[in-house]
């Protein structure tokens, strides 16, 4: 029994970083209908940027992290402005290829600049520092990640639901010509979206890096976050988060009881199943076009 609860708790912990990556992907998808495969690497370089500030410039952790968030936001805006916007007559497929290209470039830069060996980020909370509730242990860092994921979900949800900018973002995604003719600077909206999304991804990266840091550290969270976003319907923030936790838990239980080797594959079996039975995602609330 304790085993089971412990596995679920650990599943929730891994689910939190999937949730953050899933949120980041949903934000971009919501406005531009592009799954951004560079999401993980954008978080990666932001984390290494923080690391550089900490080790080479001896900055205080809080300052370094704040600057890393700023860096992430600017990076997102920059990529949209300098790369994606340059695509003439963009289509989704072309955009996906561009994001994969960005991913490879960033991965190359990080590997070259920081090397491939594993590191850990100095962080105020020790990654193995745990709380015990009965026989169940909770890592303090995981609690922080959980709180960040849920907190960001709520903030973003409110932002899209109630703010003028959030409304303009939804409008731009649904019909960019119509958005332009009511006076929305759609280019700027896309740029801001990329900035916000990159920032959310960086939160995931920075919370993973105290435990482990190497150029491929974001692969698994990014792919699982993408899987969660797809399961959640790709445009639903709470949907992505709930799906991320489901993935984290199921994956952990599978690893514990059935096969540790195939643990990560489970996520994709689940996606295939979801896509077969409910292609619009588990939580999509989409208007279906009347024929």
């Amino acid at each position, binding site marked *: 029994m304790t085993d089971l609860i412990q596995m679920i708790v650990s599943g929730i912990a891994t689910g939190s970083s999937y949730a953050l990556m899933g949120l980041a992907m949903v934000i971009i998808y919501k406005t531009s209908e592009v799954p951004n495969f560079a999401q993980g690497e954008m978080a990666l370089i932001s984390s290494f940027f923080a690391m550089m500030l900490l080790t080479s410039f001896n900055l205080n952790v809080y300052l370094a992290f704040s600057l890393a968030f700023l860096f992430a936001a600017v990076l997102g805006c920059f990529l949209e402005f300098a790369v994606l916007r340059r695509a003439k007559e963009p289509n989704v497929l072309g955009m996906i290829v561009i994001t994969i290209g960005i991913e490879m470039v960033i991965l190359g830069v990080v590997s070259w600049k920081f090397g491939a060996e594993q590191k850990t980020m100095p962080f105020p909370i020790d990654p193995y520092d745990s709380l015990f509730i009965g026989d169940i242990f909770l890592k303090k860092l995981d609690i922080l990640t959980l709180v960040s994921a849920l907190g960001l979900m709520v903030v973003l949800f409110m932002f899209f639901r109630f703010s*003028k900018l959030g409304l303009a973002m939804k*409008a731009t995604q*649904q019909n960019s010509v119509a*958005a332009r*003719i*009511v*006076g*929305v600077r759609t280019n700027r909206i896309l740029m801001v979206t990329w900035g916000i999304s990159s920032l959310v991804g960086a939160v995931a990266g920075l919370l993973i890096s105290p435990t482990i840091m190497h150029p491929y550290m974001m692969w698994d969270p990014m792919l699982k976050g993408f899987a969660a976003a797809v399961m959640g319907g790709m445009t639903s923030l709470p949907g992505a988060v709930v799906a991320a936790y489901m993935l984290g838990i199921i994956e952990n239980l599978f690893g514990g009881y059935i096969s540790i080797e195939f643990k990560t594959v489970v996520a994709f079996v689940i996606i295939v199943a979801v896509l077969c039975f409910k292609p619009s995602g588990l939580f999509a609330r*989409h*208007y279906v076009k009347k024929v």
Partner: protein
Amino acid sequence: MAGLLDVKNIETYYDLVYAIRGASFSVEEGSITAILGNNGAGKSTILKTVMGLIEDQPDKGSIEFDGVPIQHQDTDAIVRKGIAYVPEGREIFKELTVHEHLLMGAYTRKDRSGIKEDIETVFQYFPVLRARVNQWAGTLSGGEQQMLAIGRALMLKPRLLILDEPSLGLSPILVREIFAIIKEINKSGTTILLVEQNANMALSISSTGLILENGRFVMKGRSEDLREDKDVKEFYLGIKSETSAKGYQRWKRKKAWR
């Protein structure tokens, strides 16, 4: 004789398609001006060119709003000058509610209390919208969507309202209603530029009519004169004058327009 909108000799290409071939017209402040023409004449293209929606166009010519050149500006900058546009085929946001549409229509405005009042005004013009206020626009009927598109444009409090075929796909009663509302909007001080297939209706509410063929204007005049014009009657109002013995006279007259 500068009008509110002055378009001089514009030429517009879609890549290699030469769609507008040197068109000039002017919309007087306070007027309703109607552009008529057959399918593919280039009516929508002219409006899109004015709104800056076709990249890098117009290729030649100038567009002035209130004496200030606006060609080659971004659409949002043109909108901010006070030009609202209801495109052909509505272009609504399918998953935004009616209320959210009206808020988006006022996107460039800052005056909150004014926005509230104007939402009320739109509901007075189109009471159905009030009943659907929290419904997603994609679930409205075609006619309701058209009203929503016009309502959204009104939320800008435009000086010039541009409408592309507002009667498209509407029942005859609704067409009459929409035209009555357009007339009312004009009376309340908004200048209107209208593109229509329904020439009869358009000429009955407009003061000036323009006829476009193959990317050029072939006739301009007071709407009441156009309504009496033999060719306009025959080709746009569907009223046949005496049938000529041979078909060639009709051909010749059309030719002379270009």
